């Protein structure tokens, strides 16, 4: 079965396995996970199932673009709820529920009126990436303002935040031009999605590391 796939295709195909890393480390520390990290664990869990379904459809050579429409909304909901906890104490936190409501509405309207389930939901992906980059920068602002965390490398959500910033900003171009990729050869599409898969694996490794460094009984911090 693998003989017909290139190395890049295999990396794209098996990038889903990297989702098991945060799931594994998250399960080891689950009882100790603070609320925001539990949301991140939930993100990995849903991401794994959506990717599993997506891969199955890809192997069956059936369009899996519709999954992306749902996955984007769920992904944003999970990440924004984690950021809502992490950004406690700054003004943006109070606006989060409105941002989430607007985002979900925009996602539904985009699928119904602009980019149907047979296309990539690029507009919403761009909006998602932009908002999450904004949240990520707001988290850095909060850390600098409060000056409570001296050892950043020991702060799990700092790693999550770093992963979010690098993954979503690096993939902004991929999300923006993913519909254009369909106009070019499959080879180019595979190359670009291969790069995306590398960032996806990197993101999952960072999430796994963040879940691994959660200190035991840290959820008692409240």
């Amino acid at each position, binding site marked *: 079965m693998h003989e017909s796939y290139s190395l890049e295709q295999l990396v794209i195909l098996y990038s889903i396995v990297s989702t098991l890393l945060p799931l594994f480390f998250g399960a080891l520390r689950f009882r100790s996970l603070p609320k925001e990290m539990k949301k991140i664990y939930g993100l990995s869990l849903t991401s794994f199932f959506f990717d599993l379904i997506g891969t199955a459809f890809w192997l069956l050579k059936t369009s899996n673009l519709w999954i992306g429409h749902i996955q984007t909304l769920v992904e944003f909901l999970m990440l924004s709820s984690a950021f809502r906890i992490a950004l406690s104490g700054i003004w943006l936190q109070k606006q989060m529920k409105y941002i989430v409501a607007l985002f979900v509405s925009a996602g539904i309207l985009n699928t119904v009126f602009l980019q149907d389930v047979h296309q990539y939901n690029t507009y919403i992906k761009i909006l998602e990436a932009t908002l999450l980059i904004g949240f990520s920068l707001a988290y850095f602002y909060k*850390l*600098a303002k409060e000056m409570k965390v*001296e050892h950043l490398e020991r702060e799990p959500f700092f790693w999550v935040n770093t992963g979010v910033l*690098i993954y979503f*900003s*690096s993939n902004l171009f991929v999300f923006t031009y993913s519909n254009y990729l369909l106009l070019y050869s499959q080879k*180019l599409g595979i190359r670009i999605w291969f790069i995306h898969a590398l960032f996806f694996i990197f993101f999952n490794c960072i999430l796994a590391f963040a879940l691994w460094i959660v200190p035991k009984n840290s959820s008692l911090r409240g």
Partner: protein
Amino acid sequence: MDRPEELEFAWLMLIGISLTFLLSLAVVMFFVYYQRRLFAQRQDMEALRQEEQEKRLKAIISAQEQERSRIARDLHDEVGVMLSTVKLYLTHGKEDTSSKAQALLDDTVNTVRRIARNLSPQHLGQFGFERALDDMCEPLEQSGELIIERSITIMERLPREQEIQLHRMVQELLNNTLKHARASQVGISLEQNGREVCLRYEDNGRGMDLVKAESLPSLGLRSLSGRVEVLSGTLELQSAPGEGFQAVITMPLMGATSVFSGMKGLNGDMNRNALEGEASASSGEGMEVSEH
């Protein structure tokens, strides 16, 4: 992927992805560096603050030690000698020794009283800052070499702790003037501005170079600055060689209570009269600072 426009698109994508990746990485690295620098700065400031606090604490302790040494010296050199002389008179008693011993004993009692007053201003607790300030200044004025103008415009009695600290500050400043300034006039004023108390002190002495004094502050100035800090106040000094010395100390009012608060009605008025009477009766006494 051989078409030129496809190649161009691939390159553009690759450059775009690389740039955004590097940019986000740079943001993270900058933040980590910035945050570490902020923490390092905070630690440096904390260390400086602690060092300064230690210096002040040492100055206060040292001032206390000096005070103790002075008391010990006073007791040994004055009271001790007087008592020994009295003993000598009584041991080798002649006819006229009894009156001499009595006079010496009177002197001894006065000296002990003076030492005790210097240790804890007698009238401060009972009649407040103004009266204690008078006690401190009058003997100095009686020497005829120093005129001390005083102006107290506070309507309420300050908390005892604050009064003691203010008294000690004035003592410290007066000591400074007597030791170094060669001044002929001193002005002391204490006023209340809302919830703040402001103590102004000035003399017309020979002044000092504040830049030098700041780099090598005297024990007295350090002790003064430590006392001001304890009361969350601010200390402003103004002086130059030949231009006298001025200190302005501002501090928040520490939950002030009225002098006669709690004394209401007829009984209160009676107590008030009694206190005022006592105050005027004992105003004739003075601190014997100038004797020293």
